[in-house]
């Protein structure tokens, strides 16, 4: 007698939708990663192996979504950063996509549109807080970038304009303009 587990085909009515989120650099190294399900990739070793595999499969083709090792992974990259959100292979892809958007957009606002590794590392504390505001133990806590940033980035406000260098001001103005045109 052979037993196989056959999962139901309907989505599960649960709030625990996110299995993990991570940000990798352009060598596939982890900058930040959180896994929320103790049954999915429980050890750091498995997680890192998974991230390597994920990175190898995604860093060349920007194809937005991939099914890997039983997980649905949506992703997005910019310059030298890769953002991933993982859910079960049996999950509404668009919900995961909305979480990825929330993650990417909030980081982008936090970093004043300079979504690059160096800038991210300089603001790692704020990004950690954003991570924490987006997802709590697998439950989507918030998906609105402005409100996430409002709760996470308390320092961006308190750097007065006068303390920024001219180059910084110009850079941020340029970015703002670029983004307003792109929208």
């Amino acid at each position, binding site marked *: 007698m052979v037993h196989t587990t056959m999962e139901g085909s309907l989505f599960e009515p649960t709030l625990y939708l996110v299995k993990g989120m991570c940000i990798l650099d352009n060598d596939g190294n982890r900058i930040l990663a959180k896994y929320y399900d103790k049954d999915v990739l429980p050890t750091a070793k498995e997680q890192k192996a998974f991230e390597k595999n994920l990175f190898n499969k995604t860093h060349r083709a920007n*194809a937005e979504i991939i099914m890997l090792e039983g997980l649905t992974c949506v992703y997005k990259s910019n310059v030298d950063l890769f953002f991933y959100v993982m859910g079960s292979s049996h999950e*509404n892809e668009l919900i995961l996509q909305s979480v990825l958007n929330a993650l990417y957009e909030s980081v982008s606002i936090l970093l004043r549109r300079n979504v690059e590794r160096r800038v991210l*590392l300089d603001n790692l504390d704020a990004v950690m807080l954003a991570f924490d505001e987006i997802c709590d133990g697998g439950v989507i806590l918030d*998906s609105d970038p402005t409100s996430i940033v409002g709760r996470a980035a308390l320092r961006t406000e308190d750097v007065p304009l006068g303390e920024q260098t001219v180059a910084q001001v110009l850079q941020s103005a340029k970015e703002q303009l670029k983004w307003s045109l792109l929208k």
Partner: protein
Amino acid sequence: MSFKRDKKEEEDSGGNPYQNLDKTIVLQEARYFNQSPVNPRKCSLILTKVLYLLNQGEKFTTQEATEAFFATTKLFQSKDVMLRRMVYLCIKELSNLAQDVIIVTSSLTKDMTGKEDLYRAAAIRALCSITDSTMLQAIERYMKQAIVDKNPAVSSAALVSALHLSSTAPDLVRRWANEAQEAITSDNAMVSYHALGVVAGSRKNDKLSTVKLVTRLARAPLKSPYALCLLIRLAAQLVEDDDSDAAQPYIEFIECCLRHKSEMVIYEAAHAIVNLRKTARDLAPAVSVLQLFCGSSKASLRLAGARTLARLTTKHPTAVAACAVDLENLISDPNRSVATLAVTTLLATGAESSVDRLMKQISSFVSEISDEFKIVVVRAIRRLCTKFPRKHQSLAAFLAGMLRDEGGLEYKAAIADAIIALVEENPEAKETGLAHLCEFIEDCEHTALAVRILHLLGREGPKSRQPSRYIRFIYNRVILESGPVRAAAVSAVAQFGAQRPELLPNIRVLLSRCTLDEEDEVRDRAIYYSAILDSGDEQLINDYIINVPKPNPVLLEKALRDHLATRPDEPFNILTVPAEEEVKESKEAIVEIEVRKPVQMSIEEIYAEQLAKIPGIERLGPVFKTNLPIDLTEAETEYRVRLLKHVYARHVILQFECVNTLNDQLLEQVHVRLEMPPEYEVKSIVPCQKLIYDKPDSVFVIVEYPCAFLDSLGTFGATLEFVVRDCDPNTGIPDPGEGYADSYPLEEFEMGCADQIRARAGSDDWEQTWERAANAPEASDTFVLSQNDINDAAKAVCEHLGLPKAAIVGEAVKEIRGGGIFRGGAPVLVRARLAASGGGVTMKLAARSPREDVAQLLLAAVG
């Protein structure tokens, strides 16, 4: 100098200030927190370093974590908002590593009830991560207030924390349901989503109130798309559980959601409709939504659309076939997951006429995709082979082409599997398939694959019209390959010698050449097969070359270990170990894009661990067979009991799997009283000391079989006996006092012939097998069966004897051919001829076995 080094380091690490952090140094730095006043920026950086290390998977000892935790708590004196937030984050991350974390409860409670909104939400979440259910009661009042707080962040934080807590303290959280109920109607989308999650979670086991909840909310739709998705899932579940028309409103609600403005909700609804077991009246709206998705510019939408359409292939192929144009557009999709999915779906739904065109499209696409997607395509082609056997020529040619391309072992193995399946299923394709495989092993770098193919050639080759042509291919391997392949080739060659007498002289020559091989295994096999072939004894050749039993390796290893531990002097009987069963590919052709191997275990392996706990179990020898569980109670009763019969050579272990479904009772000293047929004897009972609500546990009864096989058939009565202690439904703590003894009658069960035999259907060379056993004692008799229909009768007989349905052959006159091994290792063959005669069915049953009583038992089982 130092500047130079810094610069170099910076280049090395690509400017990552957190690279090469040292845990001990960071922990040293954390001591700075004890100073007063502190620089918030500096503290924040140190905390970030700690968090970074934790996040990278660095291991902190309990002492280190506790030290860092207590240093962090010092920072509560700082008024810096950002720093405070980092402190909360650190507390959460360290809470499960450090000791005495509840020390910060008062600080967090203060923040949680304070004025600063930014503190309150985060403080609630941190507090709930450090607290346990006993402490919870103290903060319950604040939690209730927080849930209905007007600040959405605070409310969400309280609700999500409540959800996390509900796994450990469900009843406490259930008391907050009223507040959560109120929060569902919040203007804030996230609050309403989280509140719905908490309310639905607390009613998980209460269908009626879930019905009420869904009905009420379906009428006044929610604003949050997430909440709507959850509501659709709840509604879909209700439809699944309810077959009556009462479910219709839910289906209507889901259909209504197809017109929502958020794509997320539309997809959720379409997915639910497509996957409902009960088909919606009209699939068209859902399918057309999915079709639209397939044309989207976003890859996730295309994948979602294609994936959900693919799920329809088995149930409603016509609905999917209508989307063929959309799917064909996806074949060249830049996202390979989408493209592969489209191809496999098209292959699964396409008509026979379109196969050739599709294959042409695929051949251009296959070279560009990675191995794992290729495997998916190969699987789809394999299913196609089964579906359109007439297309075997072009499909086999296509597979052979793929076999010649570059690829890894798994990919090649998948192709070989497909060709092997083709050879086995389709007699017409056998010769071409084998020819392709022969060609492939000429140039195959994967030892494992070559061995498998050689084995197949050995099995199928002798039955072909020109067996000699395969021998050349096989013998080439003996000359050219590595040890394991040579050994496999020798075995394959021996098969030809055993099955084709005209080739025997040549085979003898080939085998004798192999006896000089440098590899031990090859030499051993050659000598072994030569000796058996030289003996000329047909029975011997059959049992040791042609039909060799293959025991399940896991159980064989265990059996050998037990044997060595208990009876090393006695000979080991390999027949007592359950044979390996061939894994049947599920017939349902679900189109999936990821290749996953389901973990497959035989039922004996699954229960081996539970049985190992029984004292003295190893003295019973290896488990012969575990029968499928049977229910001894109705589905909806206070106590549910399932019976598993683990059969050994001279004993049977009756495992009663009990579930207590009453949450206000704790059962103690649970055991089973048996009423047994005569001659049976209970050896020992392993009672279940405590049966806690909803936690399955087992009572084991070891029973010795009667000495005579014939006495083993009979009916058992059973009663569950236990001591009931009332307990608090919330905590599970029993009330003081003794409790009272009670019993619960279970349904009767049988010990039949099927339980004690490992049977299989007769093989191709059935006639010879039967004839060879002519010298064995035979028992035969004629029966008049009660069934009117000959098919039903044949099935019933098979069931009694434990034979698979495949054992039935013939049309007007049914013949059942099968064989098996009885517990203890006695082989048995059985043949039954059934004929309809004037409204009834008569059967002539004959059984042959070296043990006459086994043969008689088979007859007795039917009679």
